[in-house]
């Protein structure tokens, strides 16, 4: 079995679709085609609530695995309800089950409160836990699934969006240095 399944909360998808943020739906499609993304009903609904037209128009539902038969969020809602975003704890539960299945590649979560909780209570997931920007950079420099040019273009858009005052993946001015560092890391990577 290949570890190709990526689980992410809705922040990852929404940043690609939002006009003030990355605003590049084709780049999102590239990621969805390069890995096997998995989402539950909560995450699907969170994305559709904000970008129904794009979600349906791009056929996102056909490009991801929708885990709709099971209520994953129920397993962690006693701890996560109104403490984390509902999609965050749903994605943690899905990732745990994908890890068990032996197919988990990454769990993409940006919220530090949720990451800290995971580190303490589900340490099995820690090695798979990534920030969105790290996941995007690694898609080129580690996984070789997305081209250097494309990843640089996305990271630049993230940087510009932060400079304009938007908050893609909940990033602010304070994290601008980290995005620039990632850009350098990808630039120094040999292959395209």
């Amino acid at each position, binding site marked *: 079995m290949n570890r190709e399944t990526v689980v992410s909360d809705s922040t990852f998808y929404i940043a690609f679709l939002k006009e003030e943020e990355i605003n590049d739906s084709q780049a999102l499609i590239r990621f969805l085609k390069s890995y096997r993304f998995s989402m*539950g*009903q*909560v995450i699907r609904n969170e994305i559709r609530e904000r970008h129904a037209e794009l979600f349906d128009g791009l056929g996102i539902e056909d490009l991801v695995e929708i885990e*709709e*038969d*099971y*209520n*994953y*969020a*129920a*397993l*962690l*809602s*006693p*701890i996560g*309800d*109104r*403490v984390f975003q509902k999609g965050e704890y749903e994605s943690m*539960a899905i990732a*745990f*089950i994908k890890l*068990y*299945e032996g197919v988990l590649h990454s769990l993409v979560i940006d919220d530090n*409160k949720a990451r*800290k*909780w995971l580190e*303490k*209570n*589900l340490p099995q997931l820690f090695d798979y836990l990534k920030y969105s920007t790290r996941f995007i950079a690694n898609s080129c420099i580690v996984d070789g699934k997305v081209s250097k040019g494309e990843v640089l273009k996305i990271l630049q858009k993230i940087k510009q969006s932060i400079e304009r005052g938007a908050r893609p993946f909940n990033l602010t001015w304070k994290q601008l240095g980290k995005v620039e560092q990632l850009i350098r890391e990808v630039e120094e990577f040999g292959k395209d």
Partner: protein
Amino acid sequence: MVGNFSEEDIETVEYLILLLLGKAGGRVSVLHLQKMFFLLWRFHPEVRRLVQFVPHFKGPYSQDLQYVIRNPTYVIDCWNYTPPQKGSKVDRIVGGYVEITPKGREIYSLLLKGLTEKAKEDKDALRILSALDLIVPLYSKLEWDELLFLIYTDETNKDFSTRSELSKEVLARAESIVNRLVKKGVITEDMKGALLERAKRSKWITSSNHPSKDPIVINVPGST
């Protein structure tokens, strides 16, 4: 049991109880068993088919499960039920304890081996096993009031937590419970504020919308 239950359904419930007990290891209160089973029930469509949960005096409760815990038909001598000790308030609240027996451990090991094999091709089996691995370590280590606090104040369970006789007592000690949860590492320090706020907003807990003392049945959709 729900609707037209079969003998096979009862057997499945008994094996699920054994899986929960085997995973938990030692003595488990009936309250903990009920609540962990409830989470599995909300998660898994096949489990939802087996038993009914209703809002009761200690939150979500299954009469079917209560009966099977005390009177197993197929999985015999695999656990012992100890009723509450007279005079013990905690025992009364948690409804006694269940402990896996040496025979139960043996059958649990075989069951786990068989299910792990089955899970390679069976999606439902895989999800049951992994969900147990996720919830049992998290929730079995909680004290009764910590567990009830988390269940009662979870808005997604609110329809099951409207009639609890313990809600006021549990809410009154919210701060102490949350501090204990931090100390145990169940939550982190920066989750404290959100949990206390959640408790304050949990108006359904003290609601008297359901004055009847008879259990009411709630239809839970496949997923939320």
